[in-house]
């Protein structure tokens, strides 16, 4: 009995949960949840997960705390202004329950969370302020077969979308119901098909602690699948915090969806960083391969023909640069023609990248009636930890 004392004390804290006949405390205690976004909603998601006794919570955010965050983010304080959001949140959330492991991962999740590491989570929650990050995380979760939960707010409404990919790989994905206008908003962040736009204006959506707390509660519940069973499909809940009304909608999978249309039921994921040539050689030359990141494959000035700087950009990831590289170094005109693509044949990729994989997160190839995913961040099939930024 004595050696179990630590666990027993932990258990005592959640004794009241045991009175709820459907509450899966053991499953909650074993749960590993990735929370992407450490703003108002992310704080509320982590708060609820920690209070419920979730096993491990990893918080991903690249941003720093600003004064205006303090009116909605339960764990952030004035002393945190200027500090990385993820670390500030994780440090204080860890105080809620010493048995709950809360870890901060600073940086863009696209750069810090490999597919193989994502596969180790029970759920990833999107609490980020833009469509693009949601689209990316959705696709990663769909490929990895990990539940995806997306939470959103404005000044009055809280929304929750749940995609139970782990048990229902064929369910709708986040993009199946994403309106065209959201894609236009994503496209507005880029020029030339992949370069970051220097002066991309972000829209301002005012929110309050009320909607953030409702969305965070709904998201935490969905992330742990509280009261839900494995037969669930994708759904959206929209809650009106003033009127009290809510609507629940089933989300059906859409043929031709940009997020899941080419993925079949569940793609086979192969580690392809070290074994790049071996993996790509197994794919027929003429098979179409889509890279997760648009790549620069051509760079030449359309006005004067100069391509002296091509070596700096060609074969690299487009989003590592902004649209200022379209200004020609020789003639000074914004006339550089930059060829950016994310669709290749297998043979083209080998020709362009003979000895290392493309600088992308992963690539998708059609394989029979399913899909094959080459994971460029993983050397072998051992699960990876999220990559912490070097100190």
């Amino acid at each position: 009995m004595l050696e179990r004392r630590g666990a027993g004390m932990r258990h005592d804290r959640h004794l009241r949960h045991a009175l709820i006949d459907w509450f899966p405390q053991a499953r909650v205690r074993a749960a590993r949840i990735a929370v992407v976004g450490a703003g108002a909603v992310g704080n509320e998601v982590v708060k609820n997960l920690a209070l419920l006794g979730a096993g491990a919570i990893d918080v991903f955010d690249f941003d720093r705390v600003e004064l205006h965050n303090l009116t909605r983010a339960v764990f952030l304080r004035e002393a945190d202004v200027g500090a990385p959001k993820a670390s500030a949140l994780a440090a204080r959330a860890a105080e809620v329950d010493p048995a709950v492991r809360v870890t901060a991962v600073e940086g863009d999740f696209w750069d810090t969370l490999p597919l193989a590491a994502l596969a180790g989570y029970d759920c990833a929650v999107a609490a980020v302020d833009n469509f693009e990050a949601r689209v990316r995380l959705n696709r990663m979760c769909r490929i990895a077969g990990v539940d995806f939960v997306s939470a959103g707010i404005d000044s009055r409404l809280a929304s929750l979308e749940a995609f139970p990919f782990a048990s229902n790989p064929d369910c709708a994905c986040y993009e199946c119901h994403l309106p065209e206008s959201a894609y236009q908003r994503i496209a507005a962040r880029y020029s030339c098909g992949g370069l970051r736009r220097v002066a991309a204006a972000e829209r301002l959506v005012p929110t309050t602690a009320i909607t953030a707390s409702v969305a965070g509660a709904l998201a935490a519940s969905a992330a742990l699948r509280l009261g839900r069973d494995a037969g669930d499909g994708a759904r959206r809940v929209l809650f009106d915090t003033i009127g009290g009304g809510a609507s629940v909608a089933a989300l059906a999978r859409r043929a031709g969806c940009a997020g899941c249309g080419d993925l079949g039921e569940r793609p086979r994921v192969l580690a392809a960083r070290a074994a790049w040539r071996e993996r790509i050689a197994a794919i027929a030359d003429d098979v179409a391969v889509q890279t997760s990141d648009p790549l620069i494959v051509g760079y030449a000035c359309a006005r004067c023909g100069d391509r002296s700087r091509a070596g700096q950009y060609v074969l690299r990831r487009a989003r590592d640069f902004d649209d200022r590289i379209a200004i020609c170094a020789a003639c000074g005109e914004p006339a550089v023609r930059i060829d950016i693509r994310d669709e290749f044949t297998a043979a083209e990729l080998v020709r362009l990248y003979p000895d290392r994989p493309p600088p992308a997160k992963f690539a998708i190839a059609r394989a029979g009636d399913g899909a094959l995913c080459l994971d460029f961040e993983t050397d072998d099939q051992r699960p990876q930890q999220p990559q912490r930024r070097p100190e």
Partner: protein
Amino acid sequence: MANELTQLKLHVRTADQTRRAELALAPDATGAEIIQAAVDNWALPADTDYALVNVTTGKALAPDATLAASGVRPGDELEVQPVLVAGCKSA
């Protein structure tokens, strides 16, 4: 006359239920067209993205699908919902 017979009489509302209307729509109208009409007629914020849910059946309508393809029936109530992200960075 034939055209009128084939029109669907539907209720449309906003998510906060402050706006409601009864509309007669052709079965080949798309969700996107209904959303655009709601934004125009009710002066909803134009810089917001919207989705459409059939609250009678509890099913979301795919953005590009027609009412007929989405299985919308006469008398159904459709809700125009903003597609939300978690707020936004302060300007």
